Each structure stands twice: as C-alpha cells, then as structure tokens.
C-alpha cells in the first residue's frame, strides 16, 4: 500500500472528490434567495424555511401553476432549532430565507427584532374576516401584519372514551369535574392518569388564556408581566391540586413514553390544540377508534371559553429581495388552494371559510369512531377569548420555564412560587434587552 503509484492514485481520488464537491456546491442553495430580485409574481425563486410537512406539496402545486417560479422548501429544524438558525442567519446577514414558519408565540419576538416584513401594504390589511380571531390577532402588532396564518390550534379535550367508560367516569365539562374525574380514574387504576404534565410553557400560557388571564401586556416597548393575576391564579390553584395528589402522569409530552401512554390508555385525555388528530392518527395507531373530542372544560358551568394552543404563521422576511413574489405564494398557501391541500393532510385551518364549510364540518373521522370532530374544534375556534398577548421575548421566556415553573412538578416549590420566579427572571431579561418591564 505504499508505492508511489498508490500515493498518486490516492491524490487523484481526493482531487476528483474536490471537483465533484465544487460542482455540487456551486449550484447549491447556500445563498439567501433568488438571483432574480425583480420580485414579479411571475418568475423568480424563493427559499422557504418550514418544518410543517404540507408546505412542500403546496409549493409543488404552486410551481405547477407558475412554471417560471422555483420554490425551495427547507426543514431547518422544528420550533426552537429553527429560531436559533433564523436568528443566526439574520445576525450574520446571509442565508436568510424569503419566508419562514414562525409559531404564533414567537411572532412578536421576531417582529420587534425587525426580522419580519410588515405585509399590510402588500394587501394583507384587506384580509380582515378571512381568519378566525385567534390566529388573526396573533399575526398583528398594532396596524402592522407580520405573516399570515398557516394553521391554528383552538383547544379541545381529547379523551380516550374506552378508558372513561371502563371506569364509569363522565367526561368533564368544568375544571371542577375534571379534578374529580382525575381522582376517580387514578383511584380505579393507579397506572391510569387523566393527563400527563411535567411542565409545558405553551400549555400553561394557553390554560391561563382560557381562564381569562392577561399576564403579558405589551405596548410598543412597554411590557407588563403579571403571572399572579386572576386567570393565572385560577389555573395555579387547580393544577396545584392535581400535582399534590399525584394525578398527573410524570411523562413529558412528545416523548416516546407519551405516545405509548396515549396508545395503551394510561394517559386518558389531552387538553391540546386542534392539530392533534393528525398526530394521533400517525403516531398512535393502536388506539384507533378509542379517542373522542369534547369542548374544553370550563371555569364556570355553561360558559364556552377557549384558547389557542400552538399553530404557526408563515412570515415574509425583511431581508427578502422578492417580497411581492413571496407574498403571492403566501396568500396561495394561507387562503388560496393551499388550504385544501393542508386540510386533506390532516391540518387544522385558520380560515373562516373552511372552518364554516359544510364539507369540513360534516367530515366523519374514522379514527375518532366516526365522530364529526370538526364541529367541536370549529366551535372552539370561534370561542377563543380575545385580547391575549405574548411577550416580545416569549421564545426566551419559554426556554426558562422549566427552570422556574417546572420546579413545581419535581420539588416542594408551589406553582404560584414557580410563576413568580418565572415572572422575575423574564422581567430581568426584558429590562436587559431594552424593554421597560413592570
């Protein structure tokens, strides 16, 4: 293996590789976006960052109708991973996509940082009434609009009817009944829990939202944080009892144990966004036919308050040289033919036309035992409590949730203390970032 000939041959292999590499990367999508910056809606190219799996087929359908447009859809990570990448790209000033998927809770943070383009001047301001109230207010900051809704997540109670029937427990309609049901299920079978929770920022804020809380109030750079207001206290009191009595399964959502628990009946219900059916069908096949959907339990009997949980906007980036084309694709995806592709793939729409259409409402879900689940979910979208705001640094705030509120799940700290600690650290951070936080 050591004659000069093999040496040269090795060198030749490396040389050939180098050539191949150069050839590959020269045509790659390393740069930001198009070489065509005229941005006409007829030709050009777009780079889209999205982890949602329906964006790719929608882009393909758009390209079929617009042969001169090329759209490159890249999954740059889910949620936080992508936000980190997006912040890095914006900071570096290179590699920024034309459009990016941003969850509703993260929109204010990217908007105030100047990363997202205000599309109200491109025609988005005429779309009032096109979307259900939750997602529509989420993409707004004052009069500016920083993206269009891709989907929404009005909350509902997903429950395993087999388990509830087996132990003779009624499906709860109020949170008091929910607490009783939690006790009854766990007493009947110690391996069964009404829900799992190890501390989840998105869930907690949505619960406070439904309880009528307004812990975060934002006016420009003036921010008020009050995680001890009436709504937050309602939630903390209820959840504290569930934690104290060990009525919550110590399983983190989205883990493999979670999927297992949803499948074998040990996690008997979920209070979660309306996009959940798709995940149940794909990840929990063995429980097919066992799950049903009911309206979210209420704080007052007979009320019909609801909240949003999750859901994303697709936003045009400020750095994009082809904003017109980007906006054209955005409307196609958000309120054009794209909505149908998304609904067929199991997504939950944010567009009122789809939420109210008979075909959508009347769809019987086989997984849910033939139930017309969209009737419940669509009603929930209409019942979302208005006036909720997220912090302009919510991504950071959520990242420290487990160090603060999460302690209540694993130590003697109370939820109220945890929320206070969360508020304190978020306030400190906000002031350091140049906001005026009270």
């Amino acid at each position, binding site marked *: 293996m*050591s004659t000069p000939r093999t*040496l040269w041959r090795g060198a030749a292999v490396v040389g050939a590789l180098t050539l191949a590499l150069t050839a590959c990367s020269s045509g790659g999508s390393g740069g930001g976006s198009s070489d065509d910056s005229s941005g006409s809606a007829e030709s050009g190219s777009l780079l889209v960052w999205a982890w949602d*799996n329906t964006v790719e087929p929608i882009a393909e359908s758009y390209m079929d109708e617009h042969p001169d447009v090329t759209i490159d859809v890249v999954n740059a990570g889910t949620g936080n991973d992508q936000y980190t990448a997006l912040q890095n790209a914006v900071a570096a000033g290179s590699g920024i996509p034309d459009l990016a998927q941003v969850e509703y809770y993260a929109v204010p943070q990217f908007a105030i940082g100047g990363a997202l383009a205000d599309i109200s001047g491109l025609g988005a301001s005429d779309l009032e009434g096109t979307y259900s109230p939750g997602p529509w207010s989420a993409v707004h900051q004052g009069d500016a609009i920083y993206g269009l809704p891709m989907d929404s997540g009005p909350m509902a109670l997903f429950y395993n009817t087999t388990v509830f029937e087996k132990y003779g427990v009624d499906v709860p309609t109020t949170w008091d009944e929910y607490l009783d049901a939690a006790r009854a299920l766990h007493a009947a079978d110690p391996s069964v829990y009404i829900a799992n929770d190890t501390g989840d920022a998105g869930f907690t804020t949505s619960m406070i939202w439904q309880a009528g809380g307004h812990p975060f109030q934002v006016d420009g750079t003036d921010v008020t944080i009050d995680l001890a207001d009436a709504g937050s206290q309602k939630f903390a009191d209820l959840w504290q009892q569930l934690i104290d009595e060990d009525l919550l399964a110590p399983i983190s959502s989205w883990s493999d144990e979670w*999927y297992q628990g949803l499948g074998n009946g040990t996690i008997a219900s979920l209070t979660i966004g309306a996009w959940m059916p798709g*995940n149940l069908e794909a990840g929990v096949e063995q429980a097919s036919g066992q799950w049903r959907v009911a309206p979210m339990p209420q704080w007052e009997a007979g009320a019909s308050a609801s909240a949003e949980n999750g859901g994303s906007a697709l936003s045009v980036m400020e750095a994009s040289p082809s904003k017109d084309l980007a906006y054209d694709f955005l409307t196609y995806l958000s309120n054009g033919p794209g909505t149908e592709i998304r609904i067929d793939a199991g997504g939950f729409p944010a567009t009122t036309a789809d939420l109210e259409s008979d075909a959508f409402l009347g769809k019987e879900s086989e997984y849910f035992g033939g139930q017309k689940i969209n009737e419940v979910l669509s009603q929930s979208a209409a019942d979302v409590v208005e006036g909720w705001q997220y912090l302009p640094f919510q991504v950071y705030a959520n990242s420290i949730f487990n160090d603060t509120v999460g302690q209540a799940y694993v130590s003697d700290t109370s939820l109220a203390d945890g929320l206070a600690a969360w508020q304190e650290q978020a306030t400190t951070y906000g002031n350091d970032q140049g906001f005026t936080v009270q």
Partner: protein
Amino acid sequence: MTTTAPATTPAARPARPGRGPRLRTPRRHSVDRPRRSGLLTVLTALVCLYSLVPLAWLLINATKSQGDLFTSFGLWFSGSLHLVQNVADTLTYDDGIFVRWLANTLLYVVAGAGGATLLAVLGGYGLAKFTFPGKRAVFAVVIGAVAVPGTALAVPTFLMFSRMGLTNTPWAVIIPSLISPFGLYLMWTFAAEAIPTELLEAARVDGAGEARTFAQICLPLLAPGIVTVLLFTMVATWNNYFLPLIMLKDPDWYPLTVGLNAWNAQAATAGGEAIFNLVITGSVLTILPLVVAFLFLQRYWQSGLASGSVKE
C-alpha cells in the same frame, strides 16, 4: 480454591523420589496459566453486559413495527418480524433521503478523515524527523490544541465560515474535520519511535530523494500508526453531530447523525409523523459501517501497539 494440584496437570512437576518434606510446592500459576479470579470475571461480565445491552436493544427493536415498539417488551422480540419492511421503509422514506445522508456521511469521512490522516502523517513525520527553528513552539501549540474540545470551537468556526459564505455547503463540515491535533501528536510520537534515524541516513547516502524516502521507506513503517489515526478520525467524523448541526440547514447535505435527529424530531412536531421504527432501524444501519471498518482495520492496529517495545 483447592491447595492440591490435580495430578494430571502437565505443569505439575513430578515428585522427587524420597520421603522428605517437599521444600517447595509446585507453582500452579504462570504467564501461560494465570490465576483465575472469580471477582474479576464477574466484574468483567457486568461491564460487558452494560456495553452490549444497548446494542442488543437496538438490534431487537429494529425488527419491530411502530405499534409493536410500544406494546412489546423492549429486550425481546415481538411476535412479528418487521426488519425487512423497516429497512425498506428507511431507505425509501421521503424519496430515499436516508441514502443521500449515507452518501454525505461517506463523503465527509473520506474527504475529512482521509484528509486529516494525510495531514497528520505528513506533519507528524516532518516534526519527528527534521529539526527547524520554532519546532518547540509548534509542539506547544499542538499540545494546547489537543486540550481544546471541538465543540468549543464550533460556534466561532460558524461565525467565521458564515462571513466567508461557506455555511450550508459540504466545505463547512469537511474543512474543520481536516484539523486533528491529536492525530498529529500521535503520528509525531509514533514516527519518532518507528523510524530509525540511521535508516533515513542510509537512504540519503544511497541517493534517494526526500519524497522517495518518505514514500518507500517511512510509510510502510508508519502503517500501524496511520491506521490508528485513520480509525480515530473516521469514528470522530462519522459520529460528528454538533458541527454539521450548526453549519448545515439544507437536509440534502445532512450527515446521518443530523438526519436521524431530524427524523426523531418529527414525533415532536404538530402535524408531524412519528417514525420511531425508522429512527431505530436507521441507527442500526448507521453503526454497521463503523463495525465493519473496525473489524477490518483491527489487525493493523494491534500489530502497531507493541512495536518498538522489544528490541529484536
């Protein structure tokens, strides 16, 4: 243990004639017949089990469908064998992106680990066998570099590469992989031991040029060290995760590590499809080439470890 040696053991010396007391009991342990220790055997077995159970778990669960993963006992097979289907699904899921990731990983290993080894051999040989001003400074820098973990350099490297416009290209993974201070240091010490200076002098007296001396005389002597460095850099590049994670945003350039993680993340995405069975099967397929490489390169490696320890 018994104190009388069995009469049939070949190592037991024949008893001397006469009835006097034996002055020495025959030695029952030697280098060839080491003393057995029950405690050590149990400890070794435990450690062995500890390292093999995860591997066994991986292999067993690669044979299960997603539903069986959740319903059957983790360390034993479920009723149905799903392995072939899993492998087929892994290779074809999402338009066969797994195969693309495998090719990327191979590219990064061949170019990155191969290049790193080449540079380490050249540098180590030069530092071991030639004197030049500043050699001690180079030595200090190399030793210092060995102490810096690669992860600590990842973010500064990212910022530098992003200025150069190299992020999101294969170069962003290959170029940092070319630098292996540990490999250089290993080659340096190995070359100093394995190549007698007299041999070099003899070659020069016979009129061989430096390049020829290196290629025909030194390289064969360095082979065990080269294989060792190659193994180290290969494993490091194959398992490299953090660097490609921050450098690459385009799934088409992902190596297997980052790709499998992206698959794993699908389960934690609203509207995503959980594919635990493909992640597990993909992991099995990912470690197979490493196992093969180890088995093939092992003999070169072993022969090199003791070289120079005994003067022959």
